[in-house]
């Protein structure tokens, strides 16, 4: 990726006015799809993503069922109107890969052994895309799974960090993803302190690698607080403020 212009100005502000350690505005609404067993709508910067969970329910086709655990199925899909140029609605190879890594990032948090012979379906639909849609999708899907009442060990919070103008910055946006130097999406279970998704596109020195992963995890922890707040809002009402854990 060759860089054509400065993405961080003299005052340390990025193209969208953020500082290097600042998250885009994140808003999560829990339970926005009435028919689903659990759902969440996330606005992560300009991303608008819907996640809906159905299950545990019967598995079709039946031969997919596992006798000792639940089958988790995941679909990440972008609407044709979600991008600058129309996206063909058929699943692309990129979407196949993201569906896979998304499922693998959620699975460690779920107690699938509690639902043998059943299936849980997670549908993530990107209605409007900005940079970091897989992270926002995972974040929304984890909330939707909690909303569906699935037994979980932890939530999964996701956030990317990356390299822009040789600086490590939090939460890469669309422009920075396309024109910047590196993008590292991370999903993390903050209570268990485990990384469930790690990808990297772009070049980082060993020091930058360590800084980048640490920064992404700090971002995941910020996202985690927003996820908990959103769930508290749905189940305990608007006035509930999340109390700091001691």
């Amino acid at each position, binding site marked *: 990726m060759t860089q054509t212009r400065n993405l961080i100005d003299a005052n340390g502000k990025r193209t969208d006015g953020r500082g290097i350690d600042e998250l885009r505005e994140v808003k999560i609404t829990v339970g926005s799809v009435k028919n689903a067993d659990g759902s969440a709508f996330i606005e992560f910067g300009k991303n608008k993503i819907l996640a809906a969970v159905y299950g545990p329910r019967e598995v079709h086709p039946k031969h*997919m069922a596992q006798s000792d655990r639940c*089958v*988790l*199925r*995941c*679909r*990440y899909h972008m609407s044709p109107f979600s991008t600058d*140029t129309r996206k063909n609605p058929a699943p692309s*190879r*990129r979407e*196949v*890969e993201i*569906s*896979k*890594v*998304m*499922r*693998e990032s959620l*699975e*460690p948090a779920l107690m*699938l052994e509690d639902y043998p012979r059943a299936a849980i*379906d997670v549908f993530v639909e990107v209605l409007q895309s900005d940079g970091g849609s897989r992270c926002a999708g995972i974040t929304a899907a984890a909330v939707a799974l909690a909303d569906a009442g699935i037994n979980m060990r932890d939530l999964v919070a996701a956030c990317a960090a990356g390299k822009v103008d040789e600086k490590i910055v939090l939460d890469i946006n669309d422009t920075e993803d396309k024109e910047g130097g590196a993008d*590292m999406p991370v999903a993390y*279970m903050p209570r*268990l*302190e*485990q*990384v*469930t*998704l*790690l*990808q*990297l*596109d*772009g*070049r*980082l*020195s*060993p020091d*930058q*690698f*360590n800084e980048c*992963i*640490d920064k992404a*995890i700090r971002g995941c922890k910020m996202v985690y607080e927003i996820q908990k707040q959103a769930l508290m809002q749905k189940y305990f009402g608007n006035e509930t403020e999340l109390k700091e854990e001691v």
Partner: protein
Amino acid sequence: MSSSRRSTIIVEHLRRQQMWDSLAQGKRLDGRDFSEQRPLEIEIDVIKKANGSARVKLGDSEVIAGIKVATGEPFEGLENKGALIVTAEVLPTASPHAEPGPPDEEVVELARVVDRGVRESEMIDLDQLALVPGKIVYTIFVDCSVLNADGNLFDATSYAVVASLLTAKLPILEMKDDKVVDTGQTRPMPVTTVPVSITAARIGDHVLIDPTAEEEGCMDARITITTADDGFCAIQKGYTGAFTVDQLKKAAETARTKGEEVRARLKELAAKNG
């Protein structure tokens, strides 16, 4: 839709216990250390009809990569760059579980992760591969076929792609009267760096590089880290488990040291050929 079907081989219960016991002693079932690769054999120019090719054996995993050079329109947004396309296929010959037909999600991931390593390292200087900027560019296809699968297809395929690119003979094409003409001469690919991927599997608390199919059948999680001459360029965590940050940082360090060894071998291969 992506589902959690296990397509790795099923490892028999007693064998699995045997593996865990062995790992607890610091040894793998085939006698290797945790940070030891299986023997790596690279043979180049195995397909004369291709512009470059390589056959890689990593233990019993065997992959062949062939390069075909064509011309075409540039990608949108990359009008002045040549196009480099890496694909991968697991042939039905590769294992009793491999079936013909459209690629499943694991094969799509394999192709995309290998492609990402080559692309993000900027191994090939694509700026040098435009014929008529904005209109006609070189299109380099690197197609890989897995002939036999015994684990760690990511690294085996990646080495085959890099070895074939390093030793390929790029036909020199010219424009005459708005037509592409092959001059009959060739030159080496415009190579800037040598990306090397190192894949590790976590089984319990142990992280071991270059897993066999049997070890993959017992693994909890997988990580593929690609380094270029000057640092990291691509990473993909795979499979259903998680890693601690500490495990990841150690794996990154191993990917650098082990990657250097493989890189030296690949560079030697290129030097011998050039």
